[in-house]
């Protein structure tokens, strides 16, 4: 018996933007796989392409983006080639829902939150007003908002409650995949922890899969089963959370982990000297080589993703065995 097909398969995905300075390659040859009930953290610093990746998944790209290249399959079915109308009807908010960073921008300020949470059901599932309201109330309970808040307007909710409402809106159509784009970055420590608690519970109880875009290593570790670290438009390491957080394989992963200030560690964090390369004209070889203390001659050639463990790859020549046995 073969293992179940992945829920989401991304192969050689590329995305470019037209800018005044030239063509900017924001996402360059990204391969990712997500199984059901898995949470994948896409981790990276600003400008690494993680948000462009999210926008490609949901087709919410700005106008200056060229059509994405590569493969994007949901349950084995190509979605990149789907005409816009079918994508809207069959994928967006039906199978993939989104939770954005700024909850206030995701909510309409003049419509009661209960109606907004029920709206995707009315549109995508053609639910009756009563059914939709009932489901919205259930979704509110699930994310921990008192149901009498259904009748409130967004400005009457605290930041944490708003983010919960946005989460309820994403869950109400029972999508297979929820895309979380920095869902807690604008929130306070305690609010952030309670939202992460809700996400963990939902993942456990409902078996939803998550793609979790974040720049924060500690937050990524709160939900991820798997981690994909991005650098300069590429995935440089893909691994299980356990492997990634205990023994990062790529030099950038190691240095990034060492740059995280920790509460309970004597060792002070260290910075990573240098800056990421321009995506208008990236270096021909390894994109991290210029900042890498372990760089050697081979790094002037672009490294492929090299397997270095079970379901684990790193884009680094250090993991290349000369025999080429793998």
């Amino acid at each position, binding site marked *: 018996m073969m293992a179940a097909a992945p829920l989401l398969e991304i192969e050689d995905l590329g995305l470019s933007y037209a800018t005044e300075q030239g063509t900017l390659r924001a996402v360059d040859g990204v391969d990712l796989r997500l199984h059901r009930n898995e*949470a994948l953290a896409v981790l990276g*610093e*600003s400008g690494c392409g993680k948000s462009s990746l999210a926008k490609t998944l949901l087709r919410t790209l700005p106008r200056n983006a060229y059509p994405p290249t590569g493969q994007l399959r949901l349950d084995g079915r190509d979605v990149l080639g789907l005409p816009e109308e079918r994508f809207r009807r069959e994928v967006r908010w039906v199978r993939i829902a989104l939770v954005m960073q700024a909850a206030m921008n995701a909510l309409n300020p003049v419509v009661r939150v209960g109606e907004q949470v029920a709206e995707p059901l009315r549109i995508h599932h053609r639910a009756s007003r009563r059914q939709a309201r009932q489901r919205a109330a259930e979704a509110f309970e699930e994310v921990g908002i008192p149901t009498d808040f259904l009748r409130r307007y967004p400005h009457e909710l*605290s*930041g*944490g409650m708003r983010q919960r409402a946005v989460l309820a809106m994403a869950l109400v159509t029972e999508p297979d995949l929820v895309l979380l784009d920095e869902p807690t970055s604008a929130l*306070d*420590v*305690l*609010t*952030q*922890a*309670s939202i*992460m*608690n809700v996400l*963990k*519970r939902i993942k456990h109880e409902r078996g939803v899969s998550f793609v979790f875009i974040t*720049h*924060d*290593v*500690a937050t*990524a*570790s*709160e*939900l*991820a*089963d798997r981690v994909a670290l991005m650098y300069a438009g590429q995935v440089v390491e893909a691994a*299980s*959370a*356990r492997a*990634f*957080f*205990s023994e990062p394989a790529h030099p950038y992963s190691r*240095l*990034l*982990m060492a*740059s*995280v*200030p*920790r*509460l*309970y*560690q004597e060792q*002070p*964090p*260290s*910075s*990573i000297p240098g*800056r990421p390369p321009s995506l208008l004209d990236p270096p021909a070889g390894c994109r991290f080589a210029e900042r890498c203390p372990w760089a050697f001659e081979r790094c002037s050639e672009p490294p492929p993703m090299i397997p270095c463990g079970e379901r684990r790859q790193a884009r680094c020549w250090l993991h290349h065995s000369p025999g080429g046995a793998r």
Partner: protein
Amino acid sequence: MTTPQPSASASRAARGEPVLCVEGLQTHFDLRQWGFVRVGSVRAVDGVDFTLDAGETVAVVGESGCGKSSLARTLLALHRPTDGAIRFDGTPLNGLSGSALKAYRGRVGYVQQDPYGALPPFMDIQRILAEPLIIHGVRGRAERARRIDAALEEVGLTPAADTRGKFPHQLSGGQQQRVVIARALLLRPAMIIADEPVSMLDASVRVEILELLRRVQREHHLALLYITHDLSTVRHYVDRAMVMYGGRIVEQAPVAELLARPGHPYTEALLSALGDPDADNAHRQREVPGGEPPSLIQPPSGCRFHPRCRHAMPGKCELEPPPPDFRPRPDHRIACWLHE
């Protein structure tokens, strides 16, 4: 001479007097209806006491709406305190105006959260850094240029000639924040107030900026007040930390002591909500107190944390506000009846 006299503050520091002394500080903002009927007030800072020594770095940790930024802005003399006293180098700040206020502002550097917002986009770096020098009467183009170059090099923007002529948008976020720090240092301040200086920066740059602040603070023997929402950044960069909640300081202690033996239930809650990166985090629910941060318009009676506190003692905590100085150790102060 408008620049400070280091010898005076040095001698004060030698006598063991703090640079900054804050007592019973309150900053309230009026809430008005129709623009003139006063209907209440926001008690942003509501009874804060602390001192800051020369050469000492102290963190103010708290969530949004706890009053930490209002505290910073009151100390910068941007808000007028409603009550209480601020003494800087022995001189009361109350009622300071005109040239005395200007001199005070020259002695206190300010590092903002958003470096891009803090730098005027239409001025080049040279011009931005010349501004405070001109205002504070540093005469002579050559002297100003010399001090600007020295400041840029001090914050690691070397050679200064590469940065001087650029505009803020031509610099990275980390470089912009370095310029902001250079500006804060230009007038040779005795104290720097940094309000969330790294929260908009990437992880790898964050450490650089925190290290830079720590280095210049040590080299100039500055008092540094570091305001942050992120407890994980305090451990290696500050001497003492104060935790603010609902407009008040609920706990202050040396940072290692605070992390090892948090005494206030709110500090405990903050610490248990945070964790170092670890794959196990994904498999456990964190303990988070219910409820929301208190309203600063109608704050809860008694201890402001009592509605969310799992140790709250009925008949005590909701009635009387705890005084801020129960001391399990001489340098550890806690505002909580549990430590009575």
